[in-house]
């Protein structure tokens, strides 16, 4: 099993596997998104207090979850690449960063668009919002650092260090609504308690999360193929 997994650490094998998996992941992302949008925008009722603006949460909440999840994956791959000197792992970390940044951007923008009608303001320097903004800066810093250092191994090491140090921010984002008295509401769904929202709302949220997860993996594979092409330029297997 272990040797099977390591087979895909070779860029040539990974490239071909990614090429085969990608269409399925895009199809899954589109199917889940279509179902999630129907559920969230047409089937689920408007929130009794927030009204129609609550429909923004079907994109805001999954995007915010994915922004943290993608960061964990990115930091994990960056650390593995640094520790084991595994170039494919470092390439995956680089491939994940722009997708994570996009999810963070979406979470912040949709949060502001939800906050305006609900809280009466686009932005507050609340612990949850500020730590999510720091996450965006971490992603941008990672991307900038990867592009700024010429020598690839040094760039990957510097990026891994930044990503691992930035991991501190993830529990701060997640627990900020518990640790501090924030304007941002508490967790929408927890593992320890039954959800308090309508079943159709919960289904919409979960379907959109699955759509974004499939999108993130498809996008990571797509960008990782770019990284492989850049890294392996002139390799014999690419000409075949």
């Amino acid at each position, binding site marked *: 099993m272990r040797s099977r997994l390591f087979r895909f650490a070779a860029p040539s094998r990974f490239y071909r596997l990614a090429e085969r998996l990608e269409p399925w992941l*895009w199809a899954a992302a589109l199917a889940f998104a279509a179902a999630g949008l129907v559920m969230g*925008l*047409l089937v689920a009722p*408007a929130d009794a207090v927030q*009204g*129609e*603006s609550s*429909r*923004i949460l079907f*994109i*805001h909440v999954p*995007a915010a979850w994915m922004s943290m999840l993608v960061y964990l994956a990115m930091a994990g791959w960056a650390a593995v690449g640094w520790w084991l000197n595994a170039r494919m792992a470092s390439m995956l970390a680089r491939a994940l960063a*722009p*997708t994570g940044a*996009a999810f963070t*951007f*979406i979470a912040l*923008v*949709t949060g502001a*668009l*939800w906050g*305006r*009608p609900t809280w009466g303001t686009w932005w507050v320097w609340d612990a949850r919002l500020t730590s999510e903004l720091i996450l965006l800066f971490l992603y941008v810093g990672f991307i900038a650092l990867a592009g700024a250092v010429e020598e690839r191994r040094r760039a990957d090491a510097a990026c891994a260090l930044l990503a691992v140090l930035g991991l501190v921010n993830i529990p701060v984002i997640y627990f900020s609504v518990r640790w501090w008295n924030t304007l941002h509401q508490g967790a929408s769904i927890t593992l320890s308690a039954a959800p308090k929202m309508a079943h159709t709302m919960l289904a919409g949220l979960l379907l959109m999360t699955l759509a974004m997860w499939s*999108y993130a993996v*498809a*996008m990571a594979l*797509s*960008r990782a*193929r*770019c990284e492989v*092409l*850049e890294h392996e*330029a*002139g390799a014999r297997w690419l000409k075949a």
Partner: protein
Amino acid sequence: MSWLTLEGHGVYVWCAYGVSAIALALQPWLARRRRRALRRREPRA
């Protein structure tokens, strides 16, 4: 479903989904463009 007709804060809903759709659609397009450019370029010596 008053959000469809921009009533009841519908404009915020449209903006949120519009911005997200653009951000999400831009990424695969950029990646495909980069991959095509990389495939076209001369191999490194």
